[in-house]
């Protein structure tokens, strides 16, 4: 296998190496990609969409249709991980372990047994439980709000600076993932349940597709945000800018929810127990 692999790889590599001889020079301003389609984006985007970040303008407007499916791909991945890994047959485990948080004493409750009355001060743990590090816990508690605000900023400010729905959504999801790592998965699922992540994931993509469909209902082409001008009370160019903001928010919601969803399923192999 190793030798076959090496041969295939060398053949493939030398074929590509041969092709590189005939490429335009790297960074050449006169190469076709710099001359044919892109000048229109660079020169006209701000007049046509009022968005200075060209990448956002092209991403969410000129090629907004691609981006809708990009979000759908992520959503499909979330669904796929759920379908592949999630174990839903809940058999009652032989015994459950509960830890009394103030004292650190662990209770072992056999099948059918009930918890003592003060259940608020107990937490469910697994047999491979290890105490979580205080430093990590407090640091993550300190960082999380800033991370979330930064994520919102990235989503909202994608028109003017690098960023946008996707990056912001991942950061927002990462904040939850960090919480789930530094505390434990059960607690994170209590806050943001599996159902919430799944429904939010589809809702995010639905915001995107729905915006496009709304444009269609208003008589323009699918995703032609200019049609929203009357609804938003601005001129068509600003309507494009606002339309992009709406879909970026949809992307942000979908991506953050799905990232958390994938993490839940992957980190507990679908059992939704203590996780990492």
């Amino acid at each position, binding site marked *: 296998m190793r030798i076959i692999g090496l041969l*295939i790889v060398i053949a493939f590599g030398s074929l590509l190496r041969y092709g590189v001889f005939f490429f335009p020079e790297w960074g050449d301003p006169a190469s076709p990609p710099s001359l044919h389609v892109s000048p229109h984006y660079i020169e006209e985007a*701000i007049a046509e969409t009022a968005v200075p970040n*060209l990448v956002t303008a092209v991403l969410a407007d000129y090629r907004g249709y691609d981006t809708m499916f990009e979000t759908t791909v992520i959503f499909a991945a979330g669904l796929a991980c759920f379908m592949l890994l999630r174990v839903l047959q809940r058999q009652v485990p032989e015994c459950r372990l509960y830890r009394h948080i103030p004292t650190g004493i662990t209770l072992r409750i056999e099948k059918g047994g009930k918890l003592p009355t003060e259940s608020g001060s107990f937490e469910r743990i697994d047999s491979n439980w290890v105490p979580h590090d205080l430093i990590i816990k407090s640091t993550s508690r300190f960082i999380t709000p800033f991370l979330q605000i930064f994520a919102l900023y990235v989503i909202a400010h994608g028109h003017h600076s690098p960023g946008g729905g996707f990056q912001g959504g991942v950061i927002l999801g990462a904040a939850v993932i960090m919480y789930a790592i530094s505390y434990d998965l059960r607690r994170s699922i209590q806050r943001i349940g599996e159902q919430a992540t799944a429904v939010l994931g589809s809702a995010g993509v639905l915001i995107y597709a729905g915006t496009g469909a709304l444009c269609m209902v208003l008589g323009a082409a699918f995703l032609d945000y200019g049609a929203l001008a009357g609804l938003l009370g601005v001129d068509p160019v600003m309507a494009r800018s606002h339309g992009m903001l709406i879909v970026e928010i949809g992307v942000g919601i979908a991506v953050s929810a799905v990232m958390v969803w994938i993490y839940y399923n992957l980190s507990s192999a679908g059992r939704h127990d203590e996780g990492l």
Partner: protein
Amino acid sequence: MGVELFSDIASKYNYLGVVILMMIGLYAMIAKNNLVKKIIGMNIFQTAIILFYVSTAAKRGATIPIIRHGHNGHGHEVIHAAEYINPLPHVLMLTAIVVSVATLGVALALAVKVYHQYGTLEEDEIRGQLRNK
């Protein structure tokens, strides 16, 4: 000839880097035995293609594709295409990165499932188990 070759390499070394990375990724996917290693190779292969696209966008003497003075509504200055890097490949590659992380998620989910089934991530051991059945 030698000088020409050297100047060719010097002006396109980035594309050569792409080729090398692709070879690394492809080699890992074909020849490695461990499933997680294959997944890493797959990701390297995909990022190499992303690097290729980003390289096609580069433009000497140009800046990042965010219009200056664009914050207060419509810019009044004339914008020259030569001043800004081509944004189109960047857009495409944002999509490709997303696709690669989606593929990664599904691949890892499948790998975890395979591990639960066979108790190993090595392909030859799995094949051996299947043959013994």
